[in-house]
C-alpha cells in the first residue's frame, strides 16, 4: 500500500465492507447508529485493519498509488487495494487481466461494490448554439457505443445497464456481475458524509494506521464521536 491518507482510507473501506458487511456500513454511515459504531463488529473491523500494517513494506510512507501499482505489476508486491483506475497501469505494462494478474472484489464472502464517478456540469447560459453543442456532447458521452468503448478502455462499469459489455476483460466481468444485483451495491462514504466529516474520518484512519500503539477502543470512540458530531 502507498502510505497516503486517501489510500489508507480506501483500504479501510475495503476492510469495513469485507469484515463488517453492507448492513453495518449502512447502519454506521447512513443511520448514524452510535451503537453500531461502537459495536463488537466495528471493533473487529479496526482490529483486522490494524493487522494489515504488517503486510506493507518499509517504503510505503507517502508513496503514490501508481508507484505502488507498479510494484504489483513488477511482481515485487502481492496485492494492492485500489479502484479500477489502477488497471491503466497494468494495461500500460502490457499485462492481461485473468492471465497476468487477477482481481478480487472484497475480499469477502459477499463482495459489495461502492459506486462512484465523475460528473460533467454545464454552467447555465442563454446562447442556443452553445446549448445545442452541450446537448451534442452529453448525447455523445452517453451513447451506448461510446460507453462500451470508454469503459472497455478504462476498465470501469458503464453508467447505463442496457449496453452490451461482452468486450469487458476478466476483472471488469466481476464488477459487472456484482452490479446486476442491487444488494451488492452500496454508496461510498464520500457520497453519504459531508466532505468535512469524511475528511475527519480519513485523518483518524490514517492516524490509527500509522500509530500501532493506538488502542481499538480509543479509535472506535473517536470514530463514533465524529459521526455523531458531523454532518
Amino acid at each position, binding site marked *: 500500500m502507498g502510505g497516503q*491518507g486517501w489510500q*489508507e482510507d480506501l483500504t479501510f473501506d475495503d476492510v469495513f465492507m469485507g469484515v463488517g458487511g453492507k448492513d453495518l456500513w449502512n447502519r454506521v454511515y447512513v443511520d448514524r447508529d452510535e451503537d453500531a459504531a461502537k459495536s463488537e463488529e466495528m471493533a473487529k473491523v479496526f482490529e483486522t485493519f490494524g493487522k494489515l500494517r504488517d503486510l506493507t513494506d*518499509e517504503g510505503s*510512507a507517502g508513496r503514490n498509488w501508481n508507484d505502488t501499482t507498479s510494484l504489483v505489476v513488477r511482481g515485487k508486491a502481492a496485492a494492492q487495494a485500489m479502484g479500477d483506475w489502477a488497471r491503466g497501469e497494468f494495461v500500460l505494462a502490457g499485462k492481461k487481466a485473468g492471465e497476468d494478474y487477477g482481481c478480487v472484489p472484497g475480499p469477502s464472502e459477499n463482495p459489495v461494490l461502492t459506486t462512484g464517478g465523475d460528473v460533467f456540469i454545464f454552467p447555465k447560459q442563454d446562447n442556443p448554439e452553445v446549448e445545442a453543442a452541450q446537448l451534442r456532447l452529453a448525447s455523445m458521452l452517453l451513447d451506448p457505443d461510446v460507453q462500451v468503448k470508454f469503459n472497455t478502455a478504462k476498465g470501469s462499469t458503464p453508467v447505463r445497464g442496457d449496453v452490451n459489455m461482452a468486450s469487458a476483460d476478466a476483472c471488469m466481468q466481476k464488477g459487472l456481475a456484482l452490479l446486476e444485483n442491487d444488494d451488492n451495491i452500496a454508496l461510498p462514504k464520500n457520497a453519504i458524509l459531508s466532505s*468535512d466529516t469524511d475528511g475527519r474520518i480519513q485523518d*483518524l484512519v490514517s492516524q490509527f494506521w500509522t500509530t500501532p500503539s493506538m488502542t481499538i477502543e480509543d479509535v472506535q470512540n473517536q470514530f463514533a464521536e465524529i459521526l455523531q458530531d458531523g454532518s
Partner: protein
Amino acid sequence: MKRKTRMWSNLSAKIASIPMLITAVGVFILCVAYSIALSFTPSRYFPKFDFIGFDQYIRLWTTDRWTISVYNLLIFGVLFIGFCLVIGFILAVLIDRNIRMEGVFRTIFLYPYALSFVVTGLIWQWMMDPALGIQNVVRNLGWESFNFAPLTSTEYAIYGVVIAAVWQGTGLIMCLMLAGLRGIDREIWKAARVDGIPLWRTYVFIIIPMIRPVIVTAVVLKAISVVRVYDLVVAQTGGGPGIATEVPAKFVIDHFTERGNVAIAMAAATMMLLPVLLLVGPWVYNEYVRRARA
C-alpha cells in the same frame, strides 16, 4: 488657514500613496476582520452569518490533527531557525577566513536557496526513501545495518522535514552573516589580537554582539517562513505518515478547500495570527511609538 495648507502640502505624494493605503486597509484589515468574523460562524463552503461563539475553536483544540500541527510547528521553528543560524554563522566565518575560491563555495552554499520548497521537498523525499535514497546507497556499499529513513516513522518524520528546510535555508543566512562580518572594522581584529584574546572568544564575545542587527534580520526572515510553511510539507511528506507532519498552514488550506469547512479554517488562521500579533505588537510599539515620543 494654516491647517488647510498642511493638508494640501505634498499633494502628489499623498495621491501616490492612495493605492497602497487601499491595499493595506482593504487586504489586511478588512480581510483579516472578515476572516475572524467567519471563524465564529458555522460556515461551510459559503459564508453563513449565524454567530455560534467559540464552537469552532473548541473543536479545533480538541482535534488531534491541529494539536499535532501546532506541536510540529514549534519543533520545526526552533530547530530550523537554530540550525540555520548556527550552521550559517559557521560557514560565514569559514568563508571569511580568506579561503581560496571563496566565490565557488559561496555559490554552492547559496544554491539550494534558488530552489523552491516544492523542489526541495521532492529531492529530500527521494533522498530519504528507504528503497531509493541514502539508506539504500550506503547499504549497497556494505553497511547493511545502516538506517536513515526518517520519513517512514511517525516519530522522526518531522526531523526529516527540518533537514530539508535547513539545507535549503542555510545559504541565505550565511550570506547575511558574511555581509555582517565584512562590515566589521579590521581594527577590532587587530586590537583583539594585540590583547591576546583567543579567536573563538573574539567571535563569541565581540563579533556576535556587533552583528546583532544581522542576526535579528535573519531570525525575522526565517520566522516568517516558519509560520507559513506549507509547500515543503506537501511536497515532501503530504503531512504523513498518517498525520505526523501536518502543519497549521496545511490545516487551514485543506479545510478551506477540499474539506469545505471555511469556518474552522478561519478559526485556525486566527490562531496562527495571534502569536504573530503578540510577538510583533510589542516590537512595533517599542520601535516606533516609544521612539517617536522620546
